[in-house]
């Protein structure tokens, strides 16, 4: 087993690391601290990301993208998240939307909705499943489920007519969001994920409404909106069907990569502080209780990285990723990160409890990772269900 990165992967990682140092870190805290969530979005920083092709990560090369494998995408996301996880999440969500588009949609559809993004000065996509009454957790991870999606799409001639509402839609309201993939209930005889058809909706479609932005405790540089759809009409061909697996991007590993970025920043800040902070005549890193925390943080980061690399390489080399493994990496990475963020803040003592410090921000940024993309509790139920079904 070879854990050596290729030279090209290293150039990608180094580029993202340098971008985080030069461009993200100097402004991340300033945007994070703004009161109004609308003011937290670093639009110029996103434009710099377009210049470096961050929006093309997993789009196949023949369609004008970079065609990155799952591991290389995650290497970049870890570095961007070390700068700011909200910033990294915007590109990650774009990657998710394109993964759905290419793996579930037919070639003509994928090409039609890739062009406006790769041929313009830059744009991103969104994907939305979650509804006010439930979402990924209740309908997609635990099976079978009686959960009924309330966003519906019915065919009227050659058009879908979509009505309903979604919430917590990342990238939903960015000024450069080109389209959103809305998961709609089209089969009224079924419930849960089996009832759904994803449909691509350009954000300038009449009836596509931004209801309000979330004022989040963390990930403030990422846009999160509620959406409402009122008699929204799109062509029948916008249904995301007939796809073959083209892209190997692995959502859960990408979350693990973002967790690693946050965790690494918190760990490095805690390590610096523990070396410099002198109490009772010696740096606190000389105290065994602090040493224990530092060691556990290091172990957590290395274990997360090893599992994340394993899962991405598995996704790159196998036609269908092992869903147990994917859910395991998300759950492990986010639980580990929350412990790291807590310990990093604890090492800082009162200095870490004040706003505007790296560890205070990491503590807030960490929390959502055990919640989004299926809570860790639901992920574990899902893992155990899959294990049980294999017995």
């Amino acid at each position: 087993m070879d854990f050596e990165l290729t030279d090209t992967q290293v150039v990608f990682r180094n580029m993202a690391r340098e971008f985080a140092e030069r461009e993200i870190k100097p402004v991340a805290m300033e945007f994070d601290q703004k009161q109004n969530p609308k003011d937290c979005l670093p639009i110029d920083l996103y434009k710099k990301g377009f210049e470096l092709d961050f929006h093309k990560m997993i789009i196949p090369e023949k369609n004008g993208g970079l065609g990155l494998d799952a591991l290389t995408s995650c290497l970049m996301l870890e570095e961007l998240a070390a700068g700011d996880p909200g910033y990294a999440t915007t590109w990650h969500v774009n990657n998710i939307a394109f993964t759905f588009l290419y793996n579930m949609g037919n070639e003509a559809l994928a090409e039609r909705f890739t062009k406006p993004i790769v041929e313009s000065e830059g744009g991103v996509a969104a994907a939305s499943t979650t509804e006010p009454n439930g979402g990924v957790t209740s309908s997609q991870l635990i099976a079978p489920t009686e959960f009924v999606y309330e966003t519906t799409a019915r065919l009227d001639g050659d058009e879908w007519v979509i009505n309903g509402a979604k919430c917590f839609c990342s990238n939903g309201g960015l000024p450069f969001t080109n389209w959103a993939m809305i998961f709609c209930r089209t089969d009224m005889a079924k419930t849960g994920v089996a009832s759904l058809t994803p449909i691509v909706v350009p954000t300038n479609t009449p009836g596509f409404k931004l209801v309000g932005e979330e004022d989040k405790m963390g990930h403030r540089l990422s846009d999160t909106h509620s959406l409402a759809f009122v008699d929204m009409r799109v062509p029948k061909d916008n249904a995301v069907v007939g796809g073959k697996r083209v892209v190997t991007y692995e959502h859960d590993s990408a979350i693990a990569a973002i967790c690693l970025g946050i965790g690494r920043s918190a760990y490095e800040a805690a390590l610096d502080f523990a070396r410099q902070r002198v109490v009772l005549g010696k740096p606190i890193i000389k105290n065994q209780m602090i040493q224990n925390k530092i060691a556990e943080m290091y172990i957590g980061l290395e274990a997360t990285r090893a599992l994340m690399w394993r899962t991405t390489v598995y996704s790159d080399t196998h036609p269908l990723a092992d869903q147990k493994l994917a859910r395991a990496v998300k759950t492990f990475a986010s639980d580990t990160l929350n412990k790291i963020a807590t310990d990093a803040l604890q090492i800082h003592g009162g200095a870490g409890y004040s706003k505007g410090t790296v560890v205070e921000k990491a503590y807030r940024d960490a929390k959502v990772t055990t919640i989004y993309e299926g809570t860790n509790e639901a992920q574990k139920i899902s893992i155990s269900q899959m294990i049980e079904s294999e017995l």
Partner: protein
Amino acid sequence: MRIVVCVKQVPDPEVPPSRFRIDAEAKTVLPPSDLPPVISFFDVRACEAAVRLKDQDKTGTTVTIVSVGQVKMYYALKHALAMGADDAYSLQDEAFEGSDSFGTALILASAIKRLGDYDLVLCGRQSSDWEAGQTGTLLAEMLGVPLVTVGSEIHCADGKIRIRRALKDGYEELETQTPCVATIGGEIGLPRLPKAMEIVKAGKKPITVWNAQDLGIDPSQVGRQGAHTEVLKLYIPVREVKCELVEGGSTSELAANLIAKLKQTGAIQN
């Protein structure tokens, strides 16, 4: 115009010094094996100077990268290609191992002569590892062409090259004929980050490998056996921090005592 840029792959200088080990007996550095190296600090700025010239003349200017060193992975060369260079040559042979600045310059000069016509050779002013700062100068001598050191802005017109050169208290601009060699300093500013699409393309570009035989180099002239310098001692300096409180009854007395202390320790000149 053909520009040749010499780059070196070095251990990442951002790695904490505590991660480095040395073999004092063999007088060699043992960088951490788990961390990939990077392109040297001033060399990536030399690449930036080259691609800025290419930006002004996209069809008529080509940038070729050459690098000496026994490597399995071409991190530095791929980085330079992704910045906008056209082709890259890795110069490696067991005989090259342990070359000092003279040996490195000899290998580079042999490769540049083999490449054929060129107009400008750019090097970093010094490498990020040994920081000897001699290779560019020796290279110009071996190629028999003019040299400008610590360059920043470069302009080309009518077969001549004008180079702004950093001085202690300002700058000067020198004009020279081509071909010539220039070393590039930090005054050029931040090098561009390679665009992701260019990294993908660079990943597919072939790297040409030349060895001592390809370059017609006598192995006794390079490597440890051909070195003109000798490392007498290699050690990690011990840094000691002492804190001393300066005393004084008034602000002016405190300042006077501080100045006296700084002079005494050699921190400031008399």
